[in-house]
C-alpha cells in the first residue's frame, strides 16, 4: 500500500472527543440531578427511606453542572447531551462495523483468552510496559474497551431512556427488561460511576504510557504500528 494507515480512524477520533465531552457533562449534570433525590430503590416504585437500598451523599458544587443546585438547568444539559451521546455511539458503531475496527481491534481472538496470556498481560501492566500483545490492543485493553463500548455506554443510554416517561410509553418492554423504573434509575447511577472509574483509569494509563504521544495520535490519527511495509 502506498498510503500510510492511520492508527485511529477519523470516525474513531471524532467519536472519542465528542464522547469525552458528553460523558463529562452528562456525569456532572447527573450528579446535580442526583442531589434532587438522593435515595435509590429497586423495582417499580419507591419514595421513602424505608424503600431505599442506598442513600448517596450530596455532591458539592465543584462536581456538578451547573456549579449550583438547579434541577431544571442540570436537566437541560442532560437532555441536550443525552442525544449527542446516544447518536454518537450509534454513528460510531456503524462506522466501526463498516471499517472493521470492532472485529479487528476490539474483539479478542480465542487464543488471547488463554489464562496464561491474560496473566502475562497483567504482569506487563504491573511493570508499566504497555507495548506488548498482538494487534493494536492487548487483552486487558480489549476487555476494557469492549466492556465500555458494548456494555456500559449502552446500559447508560437504555436505562436513561427507561426513565423518560414519554419514551417508556413507546417502548414499555425496556422497563421490564431492567426490572422497573427505579431499578433502571439505580443501574443508571451504578453504570455512571463505573464509567467515571474507567475514565480515571484511562487517563492515568495514558499519562503513564506517554500522554503527549497518545493524545496527539487521538487527534491526528497517528501511524499504524505494524510490521507490514507501508
Amino acid at each position: 500500500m502506498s498510503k500510510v494507515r492511520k492508527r485511529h480512524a477519523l470516525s474513531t477520533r471524532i467519536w472519542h472527543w465528542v464522547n469525552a465531552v458528553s460523558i463529562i457533562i452528562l456525569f456532572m449534570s447527573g450528579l446535580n440531578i442526583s442531589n434532587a433525590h438522593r435515595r435509590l430503590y429497586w423495582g417499580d416504585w419507591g419514595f421513602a427511606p424505608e424503600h431505599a437500598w442506598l442513600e448517596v451523599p450530596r455532591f458539592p458544587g465543584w462536581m456538578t453542572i451547573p456549579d449550583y443546585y438547579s434541577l431544571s438547568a442540570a436537566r437541560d444539559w442532560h437532555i441536550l447531551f443525552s442525544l449527542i451521546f446516544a447518536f454518537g455511539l450509534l454513528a460510531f458503531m456503524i462506522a466501526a462495523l463498516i471499517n472493521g475496527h470492532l472485529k479487528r481491534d476490539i474483539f479478542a481472538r480465542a487464543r488471547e483468552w488463554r489464562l496464561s496470556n491474560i496473566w502475562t498481560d497483567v504482569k506487563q501492566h504491573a511493570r508499566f510496559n504497555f507495548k506488548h500483545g498482538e494487534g493494536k490492543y492487548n487483552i486487558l485493553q480489549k476487555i476494557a474497551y469492549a466492556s465500555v463500548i458494548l456494555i456500559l455506554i449502552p446500559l447508560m443510554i437504555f436505562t436513561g431512556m427507561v426513565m423518560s416517561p414519554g419514551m417508556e410509553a413507546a417502548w414499555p418492554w425496556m422497563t421490564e427488561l431492567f426490572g422497573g423504573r427505579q431499578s433502571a434509575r439505580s443501574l443508571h447511577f451504578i453504570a455512571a460511576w463505573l464509567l467515571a472509574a474507567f475514565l480515571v483509569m484511562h487517563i492515568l494509563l495514558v499519562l503513564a504510557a506517554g500522554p503527549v504521544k497518545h493524545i496527539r495520535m487521538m487527534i491526528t490519527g497517528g501511524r499504524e504500528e505494524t510490521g507490514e511495509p507501508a
Partner: protein
Amino acid sequence: MKRRNFLVAAGSAFLAGCSKIGDTALFEKLVDGAENWHRGLHRALGGGRIPMAPEFSRNDVSPFFRGNGSQTVDTDEYRAAEAEGFANWQLAVGGLVANPMTLSMEDIRALPQRTQITRHDCVEGWSAIGEWIGPQLSAILEAAQPSEDARFIVFYCADTLGGSEYYESCDMDDAYHPQTIIAHQLNGEALPIRNGAPLRLRLERQLGYKHAKYLTGIEAVASLDDIGAGYGGYWEDRAGYQWYAGI
C-alpha cells in the same frame, strides 16, 4: 511545576464556562431543539400505535401515595369546600370552544369513567403507584368542542405556591390521549387533599409536575404566550423546568 494548581484552575474555568453557556440564548435554543427531538422520537418510536404508559395491577399499588408541592390550598373558600365534602366544587371549561360549560362533581361522575393503575414519576426521581378513576379529558373536550385554532389545553388550579397560582398545560395530542383523565378518586377513595382534592389531572406520559391538582378550570388556547410568564406552567415559568416533561 504546579500541575495541581493548573488542574484546579482549568476545572473552575470549565465550570464557570458551563454556567455562562447555560445562560445564553443560543443554549436555550439548543435545549428547546433537543426537547423537541426527544418528543418527536417518543412519538415516532411508538411504531404507529398510540404510546401508552404502563398500567399495573392492584398488587403493585404503593402503600401510601406521597404528596409533593402544594399539600393543601390555604384559602377560606377551599376550607369551606372541604367542609361540605367538595359537593359544590365546579370545573369551568372555556376558551376556544364552541360550548363553554361548568361541570359539577355530579356531572364529572356521570361521564364514562376510566380506571387506571399507573406509576407517578416525580422530576426529582422518586415514583409511586396508584389507582386513579375519572372521566377522560377527551370526553369533556368532545362535549365542549375546541375550535380549530386551539393548540393547547391549560389547566387552572386553586392552589398557590410561593404566592403564584399553579397552572399547567399540554398539547392536543396529550389532551386527547386515552390515559389523560380528570381524576376524582385515588385507590378507591375520594382524592386525598395532599394529592389534589377534589380533582386533579393525570397526564401519564409526563412527569409529576404536569399533573395539576385542585383543578378549577380548563381552557383551550391557541398560544401559551399570554398565560403566566408564557412558558406553559408554574415550574416552567418560575424555575425553567421543561414544558415537555416526557423526558
